[in-house]
């Protein structure tokens, strides 16, 4: 019998990120193969306070490790402690955010453990954990098992709903920081330039308005009013980001954000394979493009062949009529 360890993620000001709750869902689904329980590990400058936010999700324990150096994340500083705690578990999991994808493979190497990254599913089959992974830009799904004594994985947030609070009060246990090796002394956290936005986060939004290169310098001017009318997050294609019309963290696609909102607007986006890989899990897809041959139309539930500079303002007006 073995247990699962969920590695929690925090915002700059020490609040639990909602993404952590997807990793909890992942751990719960894997547990039948392990036979044990799951615990949550919290690293932070003031981990006890953050740990208190996580005692209501049914964890056997919430493990808290406080150290001033954890205020700013570097994989080199976090890895030794996560790995040391992880040694007592059969599975170590986090959500595949840029934090999870940076840290967990490094933890896996320290534990000499195999790693299944960015899983879209997990199940217990015959006492084994089977990981489902999107590959080839989402054009194939592979099912794999890992044969090392400890297994490490990350969960694609859009595929694992946030765990709901189940009541109860998991005990909080303090754990000691493990002194990091030479690597940590040779890396310095310089800054985090956060993009400030009043909008929902791309990976958590229920409606997303994404724009392509066709918007040119009018990316924000055209799309912001629509996003506001819909309470939507703003996204972009790689082409729009590369051209400098939208910031890098707007990018939806195979190597950007993977999203699955209930409603996705692809505006002036032709539909490259890499973009489709990031949004085809959306429930309803709307495409607006003046090129009737654009590949995005094959995917869209509702395609509108139109000049976006005319159609988007008209759409906003139509939405306002209903409001």
């Amino acid at each position, binding site marked *: 019998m073995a247990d699962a360890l969920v590695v929690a993620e925090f915002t700059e000001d020490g609040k639990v990120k909602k993404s952590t709750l997807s990793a909890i869902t992942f751990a719960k689904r894997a547990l039948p193969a392990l036979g044990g329980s799951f615990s949550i590990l919290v690293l932070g400058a003031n981990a006890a306070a953050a740990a208190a936010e996580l005692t209501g999700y049914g964890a056997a324990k919430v493990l808290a490790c406080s150290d001033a150096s954890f205020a700013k994340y570097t994989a080199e500083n976090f890895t030794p402690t996560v790995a040391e705690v992880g040694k007592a578990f059969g599975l170590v999991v986090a959500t595949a955010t840029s934090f999870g994808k940076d840290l967990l493979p490094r933890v896996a190497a320290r534990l000499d453990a195999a790693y299944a990254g960015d899983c879209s599913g997990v199940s217990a089959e015959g006492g084994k954990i089977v990981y489902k992974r999107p590959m*080839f830009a989402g054009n194939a799904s592979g099912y*794999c098992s890992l044969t090392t004594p400890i297994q490490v994985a990350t969960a694609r947030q859009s595929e694992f709903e946030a765990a709901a609070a189940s009541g109860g009060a998991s005990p909080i246990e303090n754990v000691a920081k493990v002194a990091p090796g030479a690597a940590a002394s040779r*890396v310095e956290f310089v800054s985090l330039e956060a993009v400030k936005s009043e909008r929902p986060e791309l990976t958590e939004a229920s*409606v997303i308005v994404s724009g392509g290169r066709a918007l040119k310098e009018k990316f924000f001017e055209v799309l912001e009013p629509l996003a506001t009318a819909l309470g939507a997050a703003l996204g972009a294609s790689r082409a729009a980001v590369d051209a400098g019309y939208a910031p890098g963290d707007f990018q939806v696609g195979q190597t950007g954000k993977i999203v699955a909102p209930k409603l996705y607007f692809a505006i002036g986006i032709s539909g490259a394979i890499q973009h489709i890989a990031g949004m085809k899990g959306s429930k309803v897809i709307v495409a607006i493009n003046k090129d009737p041959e654009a590949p995005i139309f094959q995917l869209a539930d509702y395609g509108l062949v139109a000049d976006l500079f005319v159609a988007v303002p008209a*759409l906003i007006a139509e939405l306002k009529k209903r409001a």
Partner: protein
Amino acid sequence: MKILVALKRVADPDNANKVKISAAGDAIDTTGLEWKTNPFDEYALEAALRLTENGKTPKKREGEVVVVTLAPKEAETMLRAALATGADRAIRVEANDADLDGRLVALALKALVVAEKPDLVLLGKQAVDGDSNQVGQRLAELLDWPMATFAATIKEETGALLVGREVDGGVATLRVKLPALVTVDLRIVAPNSVFSKLSQAEAGFKHNEGVRFAPLPAIMAAKKKPLEVKALADLIGGNQLNTKYSKFERPPQRSGGAKVKDVAELVEKLANVSKVI
């Protein structure tokens, strides 16, 4: 600066929707797709070339760029192409993808790094076939080196690199002392993304957008550059494969394709048929 760049060949990512699943469902079949260098690894090579040259004289290498792959002999075409764009030497570790997982690749690369002693290891952030995103992070840990993943900018300082990383919600900047490992993201090949100490001396210098192409004389010359072949077992010892794929399937296809005539019909459908607004 001596830089080791790891390259992987992948089935043409622009036609990834044409990958097939074997009839038994136990293998991916990429027959008919051309082999290409993993785009992120190409960007890593471009970054390595930019870091080892004075932008004005790209033919003169200040330092050394060594490219390495773990692949069958046919992948030497990819290595020769890398040599033609400016890399100095190549190493191919004889191996098949089916015999490798991220753990074994990292172990093999570690042995090469110990032997080659580069100041910097550069890799793509992920290979776009397996989409696993783990080798760089694992290798950094095995070496006990600092790392910066998902790099969008690199600025060389004395004995260190200032790296801008694309993370959720913004840009995180790290300073890593050499030797270090960096995995690169898309934007690393923008004109102003990489500054070596040499190119910084040229105020206002901009690289070309994207990766460079080799001129014909360089392609000919690349045939004479050294390419060494190594055995996988010599690098990883008795370590075994620990990631076992049992089944592959195609994801469910969407049944899209419907058109609406105007904005009014679109809003009506969203409200009354799909009920999402």
